[in-house]
């Protein structure tokens, strides 16, 4: 199908572009390192409850998403290549390509953050790894699905940087709370089946977001 092939090429373009310029990726990684360090320093000698740690894990992931996921649309506008894409490809391929790219990006970041948490914070003990990693995977999907359409929206507005978290936070809050809940279950050693409700929410959120995005993307992308 042509749409899959064009979406794929857009995804590759995003990937290679990011790899070439790298300043955004570097900034993101530095951001993750800095935020993790701050958390580690503030924990210090204390032993924060594991619930608090589950919460902070997703705070860091959320802010990483806020730093990195808007770039894909904002950069096109800033560099004047938005019109180029508009006259090259159909809108859906643009959306799919960038969605998949955002998903890959936030997945990598959240895995880095999650691994750092497990390695460097001794109080953060995960007992049911299946729940933990499945939450990271599904949470990333949810984050990417909402962030992509919102990024497309703010790219067409002024003051893009500060606008993105403002718009995204209320939309993502149910997702984040569910992820925190599921992470808590993972640290408590719950069985996989006990987290099924959480996973259902995460999956349906992602599906609903993507479906809605498909319906409205044309209005945002086309002037």
């Amino acid at each position, binding site marked *: 199908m042509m749409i899959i092939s064009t979406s794929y090429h857009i995804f590759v373009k995003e990937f290679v572009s990011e790899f070439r310029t790298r300043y955004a990726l570097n900034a993101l990684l530095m951001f993750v390192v800095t935020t993790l360090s701050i958390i580690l320093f503030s924990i210090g000698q204390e032993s924060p409850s594991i619930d608090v740690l589950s919460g902070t894990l997703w705070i860091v992931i959320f802010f990483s998403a806020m730093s990195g996921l808007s770039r894909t649309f904002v950069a096109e506008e800033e560099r004047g290549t938005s019109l180029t894409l508009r006259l090259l490809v159909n809108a859906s391929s643009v959306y799919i390509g960038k969605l998949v790219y955002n998903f890959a990006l936030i997945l990598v970041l959240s895995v880095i953050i999650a691994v750092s948490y497990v390695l460097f914070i001794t109080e953060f003990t995960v007992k049911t790894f299946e729940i933990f990693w499945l939450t990271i995977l599904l949470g990333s999907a949810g984050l990417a699905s909402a962030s992509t359409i919102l990024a497309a929206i703010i790219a*067409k507005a002024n003051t893009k940087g500060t606008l993105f978290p403002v718009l995204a936070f*209320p939309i993502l809050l*149910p997702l984040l709370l569910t992820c925190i809940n599921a992470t808590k279950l993972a640290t408590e050693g719950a069985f996989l089946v006990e987290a099924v409700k959480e996973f259902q929410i995460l999956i349906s959120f992602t599906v609903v*977001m993507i479906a*809605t995005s498909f319906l*409205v993307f044309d209005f945002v992308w086309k002037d």
Partner: protein
Amino acid sequence: MKTWLKIAVSVWLTGIIIAGIAFSMVKVPQTWYEFPFIPGLEEKARNIIFHVPISWATVVAFAMSMIYGIIYLRKKDIDYDLRSVSSASLGLLLCILATVTGAIWAKFNWGSFWNWDPRQTSIFILLLIYGAYFVLRSAIDEEERRATLSSVYSIIAGVTVPFFIFVMPRIMSGLHPGSLGDEQGKGPVLEFKMAPNMLMVFFASLIGFTVLYFWMYSLKVRQMRIERHVQQITETH
């Protein structure tokens, strides 16, 4: 809106406010102007008469804002965007009131103004959505684009509403009446624990606030239309 309706609503709501605040709550009501106790809530049950209809109205306002947004996207008639903003402005005001009445009630019932109970969190998220809607609008200079993008945002926000209103209180137990942890079941409203006369006042309040909302909405829309018309005239001169 017809004058007789405006007068009727004013009298109606005044009556409701009096009933809500002045009618005494006793264990065994003797007359029609006394409410019986609801176990667990007692005096604080008065809040139901105000807080619930206002919360209901703010959700209606949001739904209307979103629907007008959808119609705008299909018809591209800027009047629908004006209706969308008017609805949202009122919704924001109502949401602030709902949050405040809820917090006051929380203080008296649970000891603190804020508890991160799912329902309380939900109304707060709605407040954030309204805020985000207006911040987005202020960041776009061009009329058509502003209307299009804010309509899209309201659709996206609207789509998450089922998630936080219905899903979350079921998953997380909370203190709010009707949450999973409440031994009374689904709460006084859904289980009709209110006595007939109190129920009447409650439904009257529901109707009253809804009509008030439509009154204020029609005023706001007319104001916005006039504003836009005036701007149009001053710009071409």
